[in-house]
């Protein structure tokens, strides 16, 4: 039985999205949630971005690819657990997923032109938010296919929280922008392909811009805009679907952070933005918390031989500094995010990539174990 906010979420949500800064353990949390949901009877998929190779190995998979693979139930045997439903895992390849999307929505005669265009390359790889967008778009696609009761998404490391939340809007903005329409309309009316920006009459602005980027660049951009316009409708419909999915009542967000001060600042900021955007933050997971050493340990250490006593006491002192730092950070987080449950996961001895460690993480996420 779960005592945290994540228990009911695992039982009822269709999509869980793990968000947070890089290096806080989002992938671990995402994999753990999918694992627990499968164990408890809901078929689940974890969609990761860049997992440790050992994570794939520990799930009994040679490697994670862009296609979903079933995690063999046998990997859970050592823990005495037999999952009641299937668990799948995949690793999202951003570029391949963008290419799939274009192949799906572009008219056949335009496909190659778009895929080869430099601006498409930029849109699919470099544009801020495009990675976040394609990850969400993939989840939307998977959700529509309805093969899994629960999809858990591990999100790309985001430099700016808004990139993620804003991604569908940016794509819609890209498609709907008035400037683009204004540019394209004369060419579309004239039925011309190869629209030239210089149709604008070689205006001063255009010439100055060409001085900045080079004229060929502008020509290529206008070609791209024209090609894109051929698939606007399909694209737009999907982007609207993605935006709706972010706000869906059966989609929930899990904000993951570590207790270090700079990560906590980012988490607080992220939390505020998500609330503003009416997104359902189910829980704040503080990962790798240092537990405070029990006071009795100090008494016990005092009975050791002098040399060992010094070493042990030094270690306890260090652990106390770390634990107190974490406690202060968590108190600050509580104040800054009232109403959002905070779940603490302790730092485990070694790196968390094997299944036992995932399992232990799950016990804290769902409240079977609680950090004192």
């Amino acid at each position, binding site marked *: 039985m779960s005592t945290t906010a994540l228990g009911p979420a695992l039982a009822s949500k269709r999509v869980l999205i793990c968000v947070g800064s890089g290096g806080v353990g989002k992938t671990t949390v995402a994999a753990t949630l999918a694992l627990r949901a499968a164990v408890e009877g809901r078929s689940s998929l974890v969609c990761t971005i860049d997992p440790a190779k050992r994570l794939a190995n520990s799930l009994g998979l040679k490697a994670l690819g862009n296609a979903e693979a079933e995690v063999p139930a046998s990997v859970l045997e050592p823990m005495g657990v037999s999952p009641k439903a299937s668990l799948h895992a995949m690793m999202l390849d951003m570029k391949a997923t963008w290419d799939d999307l274009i192949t799906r929505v572009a008219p056949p005669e335009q496909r190659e032109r778009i895929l080869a265009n430099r601006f498409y390359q930029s849109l699919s790889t470099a544009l801020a938010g495009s990675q976040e967008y394609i990850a969400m778009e993939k989840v939307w696609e998977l959700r529509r296919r309805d093969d899994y009761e629960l999809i858990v998404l591990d999100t790309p490391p985001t430099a700016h929280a808004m990139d993620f939340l804003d991604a569908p809007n940016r794509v819609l903005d890209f498609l709907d922008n008035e400037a683009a329409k204004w540019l394209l309309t004369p060419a579309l009316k004239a039925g011309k392909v190869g629209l030239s920006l210089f149709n604008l009459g070689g205006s001063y602005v255009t010439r100055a811009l060409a001085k900045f980027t080079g004229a060929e660049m502008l020509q290529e951009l206008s070609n791209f805009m024209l090609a894109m316009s051929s698939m606007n409708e399909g694209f737009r419909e999907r982007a609207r679907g993605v935006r709706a999915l972010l706000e869906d009542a059966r989609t929930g967000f899990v904000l993951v952070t570590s207790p270090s001060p700079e990560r906590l600042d980012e988490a607080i900021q992220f939390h505020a933005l998500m609330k503003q955007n009416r997104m359902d933050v189910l829980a704040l997971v503080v990962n790798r918390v240092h537990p405070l050493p029990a006071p009795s340990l100090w008494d*016990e250490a005092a009975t050791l031989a002098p040399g060992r006593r010094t070493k042990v006491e030094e270690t306890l002192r260090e652990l106390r500094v770390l634990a107190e730092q974490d406690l202060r950070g968590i108190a600050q987080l509580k104040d800054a995010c009232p109403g959002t449950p905070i779940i603490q996961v302790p730092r485990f001895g070694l790196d968390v990539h094997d299944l036992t460690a995932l399992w232990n993480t799950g016990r804290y996420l769902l409240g079977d174990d609680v950090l004192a």
Partner: protein
Amino acid sequence: MTPEGAIPTVRRSFFMAGLLDKRLWIVSGKGGVGKSTIAAALALRSARAGRRTLVCEVNTQERISGLLERPPAGPDVKRLEENLWAVDVRPQEAMREYGIMVLRFETLYKTVFENRLVRYFLRFVPSLQELVLLGKIMFHLQEKLPDGRWRYDTVVLDAPATGHAISFLSVPQVLLQTLPPGPMTREALKMRDLLVDPAVTAAVLVALPEEMPVNEAVELHAALKDKVRIRTHAAVLNQSFPERFTDGDLEALAGHPELQRVAQAHHDRAALAVLAGTKLERNLHAPVYAVPRLFVPRFGRDAVEQVMGHLEPLVTGET
């Protein structure tokens, strides 16, 4: 032996020039490994060596000025203390500076760049944003004082995390391969030449003694070498735990299971640091400098100065 003495610090099998011989110090690594702390410590050390030093952050929540307990620098270069300046390079401001440089006049810039249509386009020009960000940093690297000396002897770049760092630093290369010759490629060529010059540029990769950060440092090293042609000067293994408990200690604690767990956890973390150091050294073919985890209630200037002390051999090249 002091605890610090037990950390795998400098391996003497590598002879390296110190960072002080280079002008552009690029610090990168996985998110959360303490890049900004290392960049702040290196910049402080350079300033202490009497070098006029500029430390650049790239479009981020500024951290370095805070670590050094100074007010935020913002998008314009600001003096933090003697010999030390800081700037947070942001796209909009950098674009404006670049635009004015190309178009020569501010009013011209306004007419062109504040045009809505143009702004819209600029967002989609491949790599333009990275180009102007990197461009601003490279501009400061080449900036001279009226008397002909460099305005900044050292430029420390607190670069984005791994994936973003690779795309950021390979922008000149990518532009040169894909763009027809024009104003952007001229800029790109100048930048590329400085980045790949080992007499000018040195990359310092930061990792923690854990699997993922070490793997990322190895990937970053390979990508920098192959795609950008920047050589890894050294790696910093941040937040290392020095060895403290011997096997004998652990055995002797058998009667105290709780304490044994505490000691074992420490021992494991120290073992991880050794393992990580070896893996980095083997894959990077560069020296690895360990910075011990600091146990301070608040990580501020004092802590940065301590980190700086541990980086001394990296900076001076003296072991």
